[in-house]
């Protein structure tokens, strides 16, 4: 091969690579645009006047940004005592998500640690059962769990604690709480939504067990020789080791629970108690369907921002967690 032929051959490869790369960029941008444009359309819609909503050609950037839409949306839906509903819904979600997170982190790490590190008869059978429950459709148990919840008496202690906590929460958040009588059962309370989180879920247990298996056994043997109890080993050795995995679980649980509307739809009857996802869906029933899209989009933006920001900040943990559990679509 002569030098010129070699150069020509090399140039050909380079040109093909460049073409390939350009094509890939174009595809990435096209696909990316399809993913992101609806979200931008939502934000843009939330800042328009009512007349700008349906103009042709579509207007992507409003003439003047109508921040007032957020104010109107924020105050238009009312609680039973007349206060604005949206802040309360937002608070409800934060509160629910927090309790669920505590429950998920505590219970799943305990069970995962047990399966990974402690020997016992019957362990393998139990683990097999755990894996099988991952396959069960949750609809199997909705109806009977609902009936069980409707039969469980509401614990007086819970009621006393929550009544005592209301003034403090009110002081901290500025959200109004009305005083209610003690509920007779668990329906229309937060217990069906929070208590099950304290009983560990198969997917997360599996993920944590897999991780705990990778912790070197020398660590807990050394601790045991030093006289540490099992609880101590779990708390002071395994939990700190598992920080990255716990971060993944936290992020996934947060994002997953922020959007949760089905459980609340089943169990809550009083709209004051709705979390924001169900609250926005409820708001949709109030807004005049064909005209008030700007208010609905504002509600959608408020609902979307927290999970979106958490995703952007902790993307690595989110992706890791999704890869490890695969619990999302």
């Amino acid at each position, binding site marked *: 091969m002569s030098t010129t032929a070699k150069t020509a051959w090399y140039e050909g490869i380079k040109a093909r690579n460049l073409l390939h790369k350009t094509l890939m960029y174009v595809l990435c941008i096209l696909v990316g645009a399809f993913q992101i444009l609806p979200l931008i359309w939502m934000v843009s819609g939330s800042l328009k006047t009512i007349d700008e909503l349906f103009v042709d*050609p579509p207007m992507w950037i409003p003439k003047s940004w109508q921040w007032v839409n957020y104010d109107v949306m924020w105050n238009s839906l009312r609680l039973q005592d007349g206060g604005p509903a949206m802040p309360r819904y937002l608070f409800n979600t934060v509160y629910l998500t927090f309790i669920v997170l505590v429950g998920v982190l505590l219970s799943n790490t305990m069970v995962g640690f047990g399966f990974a590190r402690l020997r016992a008869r019957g362990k393998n059978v139990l683990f097999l059962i755990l894996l099988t429950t991952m*396959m069960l459709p949750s*609809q199997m148990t909705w109806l009977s*769990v609902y009936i069980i919840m409707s039969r469980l008496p509401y614990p007086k202690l819970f009621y006393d604690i929550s009544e005592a906590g209301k003034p403090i929460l009110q002081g901290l958040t500025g959200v109004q709480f009305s005083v209610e009588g003690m509920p007779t059962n668990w329906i229309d309370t937060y217990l069906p939504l929070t208590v099950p989180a304290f009983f560990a879920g198969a997917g997360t247990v599996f993920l944590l067990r897999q991780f705990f298996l990778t912790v070197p056994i020398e*660590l807990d043997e050394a601790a045991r020789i*030093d006289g540490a109890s099992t609880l101590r080993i779990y708390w002071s050795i395994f939990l700190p080791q598992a920080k990255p995995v716990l971060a993944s679980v936290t992020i996934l649980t947060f994002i997953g629970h922020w959007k949760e509307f089905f459980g609340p739809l089943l169990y809550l009857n009083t709209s004051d108690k709705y979390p924001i996802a169900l609250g926005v869906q409820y708001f949709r029933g109030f807004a005049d369907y064909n005209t008030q899209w700007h208010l609905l989009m504002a509600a959608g*933006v408020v609902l979307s921002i927290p999970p979106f920001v958490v*995703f952007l900040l902790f993307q690595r943990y989110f*992706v890791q967690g999704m890869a490890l559990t695969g619990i999302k679509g």
Partner: protein
Amino acid sequence: MSAVQAVAPDKSRRPAKTGLGRMRLREEREFYLFVAPWLVGFLIWTAGPMIYSLYISFTTWDVFTKPVWVGLQNYATLWHDLFEPSQLVLFSQSLKVTTIYTVLMVPLRMIVNLLGAMLLNQRIRGMPFFRAVFYSPTVIPSVASALVWTWIMQSNGGLVSIFLNKLGLPNQTWLYRSKTALVTLVGLGLWGFGSQMLFFLAGLQSIPEHLYEAAKIDGAGQWQQFRYITVPMLSPVIFYNLVMSMMGTFQAFDSAFLYTGGGPNYATHFYVLNIYTFGWRYFKFGIASAMAWVLLVIILAMTMLVLRSSSAWVYYEGEVKGR
């Protein structure tokens, strides 16, 4: 780590010859204490309710009065509905709708996610940015994305209609007509990538480069490389995604609830939406429980079928065939 700090070994706790059995027992007791949250939860939120719902499925019950034992009557009603579909049962209608939805959705979603993964597997700059963009619809609550898509799909003045008008076509009413609603839901469901793409991406990255190089030397084109290297090497991932996606799609609820409410004329009345309707709208917990049990059987059967077929098309490296 304070626990590891040197503490004088406590001689009394060192296992004596006879103490070994006792230590085992103690460890066993501790195991059951540690897994108690799951074990108790399994008994009261899964095993118990399942047996309970099996019992309910043999009764008629509106929750307020006492359940009445009716034997197999609920199942018989479902069986008859297969041959004489009734608007009062909607069993065969919801089964049909869900099956069509699953048959369309599972392969399409898989292709979309595979293509997305192949795009993200390219070595070009700005990949982290594109990856974040590709994921963002997944983290948006479905209630919010349903809002914006309903607006986009609105027949009068929605983005799609405006676009169609530009082409000289009339406003679309796809979500509001029984012939097109289901397919439209499939299309809307293809927006956004999920964990499937992630698994595909991990799978793609684990395919050794030398396989492609060898194929190139043998003169294989892009399509042949894809067909004879990528697909077989990805088949375990495809298998996993297929099983999970089938189970998930058959239990679809959100899109029907948020976009169409099951209409028009029950064209998007998914199976799970039917269970919900019978349970929480009509308070017919008996027949709703029977439907839930039929769902379990269907899902188990589907999974077994795929599992059975897997030996024919799933390729595991290091697996010895013919044993």
